[in-house]
C-alpha cells in the first residue's frame, strides 16, 4: 500500500462512518454453520489464536489450562461480557454452549466440531466464571478449535432455535449486531456501543470504530468489483483473479491468506466402480498440472497443494514430490492397469469407458475454471471428464452420481483428516472408501493412524502420525489435492484501515476504521 501511515497506528483512528461491503450472498452466518468474515463481526470465542505464531490469546476467557492427558480444560471467564440479548457471558451460558453442541450433533448439525466432541463428557461449573470441560479421551486439538469461530459462543436462547432457522437467527456477543437482514439482498450491522471485550490480539479495545456496516449481498464478482471501482463500496469480497489485479492497480488493497484445512481437492465417490480402481485415482493425481491450475484458474493467491492439508496447519508435511505433474507416469499407470486407448481418445477396459463426472460449486468461478482445466488435462492421458456444476452441494453429493467432488475444507486443526477419512464402520459417510485391497494398498493402516493421532498428546509423535496419514492419503489417492485456495479474500479501498485475518483466515473488521 501507499499509506503514509501503517494500518496499525491508532493515532489517526477515526471514529464513526459506514462501511459498505459488497459481499457474496451466504444463506447462513451462524458461526457454527458457516464460514466468513461475518462470523467474526458478530461473535466472539473463548480464545483467539495468532495466525502466524500459533500462540493463543485471551478473549472471553482470561485464563485457560488443561491437564497433562488433555482430557480436562479449565477456562476462567472474563467479567462484564454479555450477549446482545443481555444475557451475561458466564459459566452457565458457556456450559449451555458446549452442551448445545451435543444437541446439534443429535439433530444432524454441528459438523465442524464433531471430531472434537466425539468423547465429550460434560462441562462442570466451578463458580460463576469458571468452567471445566471434560472429555473421556485426550483431545489435543480442542483448544485450537475453541479459538475459532467454529466454537464461537452464542446466547443460550439461540440453542432453542432450530438449526435451519439459527443459520440467520442467533444471538452472540460480537462487536456488531444485525440491525436488518434482507436475504440475498442486504445485511446491515450496527456496532455494540457497550462492547468492551475485544480479543487479546485486537489493536484496540472498546467499541468498534465503524458505526455501521452496510453489506450488499451480490452474487456477481464483476458487480462487486465494479462497486469498489465506482466508489460505491469500500470492500469487495472475493474478487476475480483478473479483477483483483486491476483493483490493486487502482490503489485498492487486497487481503487474503491461504486457507487452513484441506486444500481444494478431488474427493472420490467410492461407491462408483471407476474411482474404486486405485490406478484410475493415481493416474488422475499425476495427470493434474497444479501449476497451471494456480496460474490460470485460481490465481497466485492459491499455490499448488503439496499435501492433503494446507501448510498453515500444525502437522503439515511437504509431499510436493508425490504431487508432481507427471503425464507419462499417469499414462503408464493406466496402461499397466489395462486401460487401453480407444478410438475416440478415451481409455477403455472391459468395454467400460474411462469417463468421470466431477461435481463442483456452480457459483464459484475459480472452481468452474479449474474444472475446465482439469477436464483438458485429463483428456491428454485418455480420461474423459464431464463437469457438473451445482449449487449448495452437500453430503448427498454422491447421490448425484458424480465420481469426484471438487471441494476444500476449513479447519484450524490437522485433525480434520480424521473427520474426513475415518471409517468407523457406520454408514454416516457412505461415499467413503472401504479398506479392501483393491481400493487401498495400505489396508487398515490409515484408520489406525487417524485414531492414534486424535488422542496423541505428545506433539512430535502426533506429527509423525499425521505425516503418515498424509502420505497414505496421497499414495492411495484417497484425496487428490489440487491447490491451496485463498481464504478471506477481499479487496478494500485505500481508506479502509485496520483489517486483518484470523487463524481460520477469516477477515476481522473489529479493528477497522475509515480514513478520509
Amino acid at each position, binding site marked *: 500500500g501507499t499509506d503514509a501511515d501503517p494500518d496499525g497506528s491508532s493515532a489517526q483512528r477515526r471514529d464513526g462512518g459506514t462501511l459498505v461491503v459488497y459481499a457474496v450472498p451466504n444463506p447462513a452466518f451462524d458461526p457454527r454453520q458457516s464460514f466468513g468474515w461475518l462470523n467474526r463481526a458478530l461473535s466472539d470465542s473463548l480464545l483467539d489464536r495468532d495466525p502466524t505464531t500459533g500462540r493463543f490469546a485471551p478473549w472471553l476467557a482470561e485464563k485457560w489450562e488443561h491437564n497433562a492427558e488433555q482430557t480436562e480444560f479449565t477456562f476462567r471467564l472474563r467479567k462484564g461480557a454479555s450477549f446482545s440479548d443481555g444475557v451475561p457471558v458466564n459459566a452457565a451460558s458457556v456450559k449451555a454452549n458446549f452442551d448445545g453442541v451435543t444437541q446439534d450433533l443429535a439433530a444432524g*448439525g454441528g459438523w465442524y466440531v464433531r471430531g472434537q466432541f466425539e468423547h465429550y463428557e460434560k462441562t462442570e461449573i466451578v463458580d460463576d466464571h469458571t468452567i471445566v470441560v471434560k472429555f473421556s479421551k485426550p483431545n489435543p486439538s480442542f483448544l485450537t478449535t475453541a479459538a475459532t469461530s467454529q466454537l464461537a459462543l452464542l446466547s443460550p436462547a439461540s440453542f432453542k432455535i432450530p438449526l435451519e*432457522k439459527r443459520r440467520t437467527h442467533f444471538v452472540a456477543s460480537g462487536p456488531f449486531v444485525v440491525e436488518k437482514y434482507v436475504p440475498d*439482498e442486504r445485511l446491515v450491522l450496527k456496532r455494540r456501543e457497550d462492547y468492551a471485550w475485544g480479543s487479546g490480539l485486537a489493536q484496540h479495545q472498546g467499541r468498534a470504530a465503524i458505526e455501521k456496516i452496510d453489506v450488499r449481498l451480490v452474487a456477481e464478482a464483476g458487480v462487486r468489483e465494479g462497486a469498489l471501482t465506482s466508489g460505491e463500496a469500500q470492500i469487495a469480497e472475493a474478487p476475480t483473479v483478473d479483477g483483483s489485479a486491476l483493483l490493486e492497480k487502482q490503489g485498492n488493497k487486497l487481503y487474503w491468506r491461504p486457507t487452513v484445512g484441506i486444500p481444494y481437492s478431488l474427493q472420490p465417490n467410492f461407491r462408483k466402480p471407476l474411482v474404486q480402481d486405485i490406478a484410475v485415482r493415481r493416474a488422475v493425481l499425476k495427470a493434474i498440472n497444479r501449476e497451471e491450475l494456480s496460474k490460470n484458474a485460481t490465481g497466485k493467491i492459491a499455490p499448488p497443494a503439496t499435501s492433503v492439508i494446507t501448510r498453515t496447519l500444525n502437522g503439515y508435511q511437504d509431499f510436493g514430490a508425490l504431487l508432481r505433474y507427471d503425464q507419462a507416469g499417469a499414462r503408464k499407470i493406466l496402461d499397466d492397469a489395462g486401460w487401453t486407448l480407444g478410438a475416440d481418445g478415451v481409455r477403455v477396459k472391459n468395454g467400460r469407458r474411462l469417463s468421470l463426472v466431477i461435481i463442483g460449486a456452480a457459483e464459484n468461478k475459480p472452481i468452474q475454471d479449474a474444472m475446465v482445466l482439469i477436464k483438458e488435462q485429463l483428456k491428454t492421458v485418455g480420461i474423459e471428464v464431464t463437469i457438473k456444476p451445482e449449487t449448495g452441494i452437500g453430503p448427498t453429493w454422491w447421490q448425484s452420481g458424480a465420481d469426484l467432488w471438487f471441494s476444500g475444507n476449513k479447519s484450524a486443526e490437522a485433525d480434520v483428516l480424521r473427520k474426513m477419512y475415518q471409517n468407523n464402520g457406520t454408514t454416516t459417510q457412505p461415499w467413503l472408501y472401504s479398506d479392501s485391497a483393491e481400493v487401498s494398498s495400505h489396508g487398515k493402516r490409515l484408520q489406525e493412524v487417524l485414531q492414534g493421532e486424535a488422542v496423541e498428546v505428545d506433539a512430535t509423535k502426533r506429527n509423525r502420525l499425521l505425516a503418515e496419514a498424509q502420505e497414505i492419503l496421497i499414495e492411495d489417492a484417497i484425496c487428490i489435492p489440487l491447490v491451496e485456495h485463498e481464504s478471506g479474500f477481499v479487496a478494500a479501498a485505500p481508506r479502509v484501515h485496520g483489517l486483518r485475518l484470523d487463524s481460520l483466515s477469516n477477515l476481522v473488521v473489529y479493528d477497522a476504521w475509515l480514513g478520509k
Partner: protein
Amino acid sequence: MPDTKTRARARGRLGSRRVSGQARYIIRRVYYAVFVVWAAYTITWLLLFLMPSNAAEVMLRNVSGGDSAADRAAVAALEHRYGLDRPPHEQYLTLLFRAVKGDFGISTATGRPVIEVIGQALPGTIQLGLAGLVLGTFLGLGIALAANAVRAPFLRNLLFSLPPLFSSLPAFFVGLLLVQFFAFGLKLLPAAGAGTAAHLVLPAITIAIPVSAGIAQVTAKSLVANLRSPYADYLRAKGVPHRRILLTHAFRNAIIPATTLLGMSIGGILAGAVVVETVFSRQGLGRLMQTSVTLQDIPVVQGVVVFSAVLYAAANLLVDLVYPKIDPRISIG
C-alpha cells in the same frame, strides 16, 4: 332545472340496473380468481409430487451444512414431520387445507415458513413490478400514440418497429448493459442492491421494456384499427380533425385491449423478475425462485409459483373491476 331532473332520472334508471348487474359481475370475477389460484396450487402440487427427488433428503443436507450423509432414520423422521409418508390424497388435502390458512410449509433451505420467506421477498418485487408497470405503461402508450401521430414515414416506421425490437431484448442483456453504462461508465446509479429510489431505476427500466413492448404493440395496432374503423371515418366526415380523433376517440377505444394486456403482463413481470432481480441482486420473488431452484427448495418453488398465480389473479380481478369504467358496453349484463 327540469333539464337536470330528467337527466338524473334517466341516469338513475340506467344506474340502478348497473348496480345489480355489477354485483353479480364482481362475484363472478372473484369466484374465477379463486378458482385460478386453487387450480394453480393443485397443478403445481401434482407436478412436484411426480418429481423424482426426495424433499426430505434435500432438507437434511441443507441442515447439516457439511457432508455427513442423510441418515435413513433422520430422513424418515423428517418425512414424518412434513407428512411426506402419508398417502398422496391425504397429503394433498392436508396441504391444501394448510395453504388456505396461509401455511405453505417450511423452506428446506432456510427452515423458515414459506409464507414468511415469500412475505419477505414480496415487497421488493411489488416495488419493482409497480415501477416497471407504470414506466412500461407510459412508455408503451407513448410509443403507440407517437407512432400513430407522426407523419414522416421514416419516423413512423421507426416507432412501429420499436415494440418488436423491445420484445426481442433479453432482460439479462439489457440489465447488464445498463449496469455497464450507467453504473460503471457514468457512475450515475448503483449497480446492484435495493433500498433507495436510485437503486430502483435501472431494474425498473429493465423490467419495463418488455412490458412496454406488449402495450405499445397492442395499443398501436388497436389505434390503427380504430383509426380505420367506420366510426373514425364518420368522425372525419363530421369534420373532426385527425389529432382529436386520435386523442379523444381512438385512444379511449384503444386503451381497452391495453387494459386487458396490463393485467396479463403481471405474469411477464414476475418472469422478468427472476432475471432482473438476479442481475441486480435485489431481493424478491424472482430471486427467491432462482435460488430455490438451485437449492432445490421445493416448498418455496411451489409457493412462488402459487403466489404468482395469486398475483396474476388479483391483478386481473382489478382489471376486471375497472373494465366497466373504461368500456361502457360491459357495464350491463
